[in-house]
């Protein structure tokens, strides 16, 4: 049995930043457990630029962003176990992990930080009918093949999904000499940032077909083509718009799901909307001493936000083992209101708030000229105008302690109000 103060599961940007913060806060015995052969997580394969604009105020590539944290971690006494897979954790904070050198490892931690990231949705989860040939990859797997292994997995590519990863891979395949036949998106708006629509798709004259989906995949051994169709307003394919597109590769970029088997094994309370643990303002889960941060909590679009929130978790873990964690009152639930899909943190329960809390919200639909409103006991305690909200771009609200300390009830509702709502009221 190994005993540590803080065990961090996953060595991506969330794990690295939380480890650094815990270390700065004086925690002596920190262990990062990473199943990959290197630290850095998914950033290592995201070779494009666009990372770090908030934290470092310059635009870095994914590996560069990771390198900055890896260099910092190396200067400290933080322990790292690579090539080590965590198999199970329980609510008593015992960890079972395995690697080739040590075999089965038992680790007991005073506090645990969950930072396992997320994984990609696959074909099975979106139910595309047809044959089962080779040549179908998720975007992240294709990204790994090209950027880490140096293998281009196809020559004629169809991409399903216009999230950032799908569009980034459209550009990557094109620059590597493959032909991208088109990006097909079931929604009527692109799933990713406008910057990526312009710089990854339009720059290379790749057709972007909105309100379209793949209805069938054909091929005996290798993909030979896909059938695509327009969809109606209910997202049902329209039969007579079906068309066959020859290709040898299908790339699925159809969303990410937080990776939470371990959280569940520790009996951590889960949010059915985010698919991640329910956390409070210190990123503590429902199990005392177990914290969570990064994509394991909800899918972030900017790594800068991941690092920032990871510091909150790192500090929380340090305070927890010192017995200094904020005194708790009965929890105040934070609920998603109008045009809000979810809010993180889902609960707050400091007895007295002495610093800002940042709420992250994901909206359901694009809306212009809106106001985000925080309601407590029916009273509007906070309002902020925003020019436009879009589902691919997380909305961040920093609420100050003087507002937070005015909350009386046990519930907060966060609404995004349109112009018309305001006129009505």
């Amino acid at each position, binding site marked *: 049995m190994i005993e540590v103060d803080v065990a961090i599961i996953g060595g991506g940007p969330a794990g690295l930043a939380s480890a650094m913060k815990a270390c700065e806060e004086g925690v002596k015995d920190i262990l990062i457990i990473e199943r990959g*052969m*290197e630290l850095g997580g998914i950033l*290592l394969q995201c*070779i*494009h*630029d666009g990372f770090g604009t908030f934290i470092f105020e310059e*635009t870095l*590539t*994914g*590996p*560069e962003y*990771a*390198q900055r944290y*890896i260099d910092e971690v190396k200067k400290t006494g933080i322990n790292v176990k690579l090539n080590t897979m965590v198999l199970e954790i329980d609510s008593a904070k015992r960890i079972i992990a395995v690697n080739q050198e040590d075999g089965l490892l038992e680790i007991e931690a005073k506090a645990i930080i969950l930072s396992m990231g997320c994984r990609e949705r696959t074909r099975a989860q979106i139910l595309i009918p047809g044959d089962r040939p080779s040549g179908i990859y998720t975007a992240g797997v294709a990204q790994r093949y*090209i*950027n*880490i*292994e*140096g293998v281009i997995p196809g020559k004629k590519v169809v991409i399903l999904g216009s999230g950032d990863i799908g569009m980034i891979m459209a550009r990557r395949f094109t*620059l*590597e000499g493959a032909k991208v036949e088109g990006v097909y998106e079931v929604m009527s708006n692109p799933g990713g*940032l*406008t*910057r990526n*629509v*312009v*710089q990854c798709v*339009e*720059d290379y004259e790749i057709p972007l077909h909105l309100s379209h989906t793949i209805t069938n995949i054909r091929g005996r051994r290798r993909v030979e083509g896909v059938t695509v169709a327009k969809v109606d307003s209910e997202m049902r394919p329209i039969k007579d718009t079906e068309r066959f597109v020859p290709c040898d590769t299908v790339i699925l970029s159809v969303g990410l799901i937080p990776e939470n088997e371990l959280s569940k094994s520790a009996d951590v309370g889960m949010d059915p909307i985010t698919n991640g643990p329910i956390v409070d303002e210190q990123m503590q889960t429902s199990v005392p001493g177990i914290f969570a941060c990064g994509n394991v909590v909800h899918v972030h679009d900017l790594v800068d936000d991941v690092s920032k929130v990871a510091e909150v978790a790192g500090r929380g873990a340090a305070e927890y083992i010192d017995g200094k964690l904020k005194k708790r009152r009965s929890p105040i639930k934070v609920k998603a209101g109008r045009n809000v899909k979810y809010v993180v943190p889902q609960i707050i329960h400091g007895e007295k708030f002495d610093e800002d809390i940042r709420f992250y919200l994901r909206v359901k639909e694009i809306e212009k000229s809106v106001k985000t409103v925080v309601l407590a006991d029916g009273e509007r305690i906070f309002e902020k105008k925003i*020019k*436009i909200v*879009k589902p691919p*771009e997380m909305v961040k609200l920093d609420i100050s302690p003087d507002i937070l300390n005015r909350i009386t009830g046990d519930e907060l509702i966060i609404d995004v109000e349109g112009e018309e709502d305001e006129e009505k009221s």
Partner: protein
Amino acid sequence: MKRSHNFTCIVCPMSCQIELIEEDDKILEVRGNGCKRGEEYVTEEFTNPVRMLTTTIPVQEGRIAMLPVRSERPVPKNLLRRCMKELSKVRVKAPVRCGDIIYENILDTGVSIISSRDLSIGNYSEFR
């Protein structure tokens, strides 16, 4: 002859649809932009569009097979493919440090291609 060009602005989330009207490369009018930054953006995009180039280079004796690299600064957009072609001939040998110059002054742009991570010596095939 007067020509019109359409742009989607990427400066902020508003994504304004901006039209630029020009005659013999002289900009006559910019419209549809919600703010000044939009005008600057389309002017730049029309006169001298630039992009960062990011790609990978095969590494010998490295811990992993490919080294991620980027242009130190953005390069002219119309040179991206030629840069890729130029870089397709390049090989590097581990170890490499983040920021090392991998290819100097690509296509006489004055921009060098630099390494985007540390890459130590190792036997990649061991990990496959």
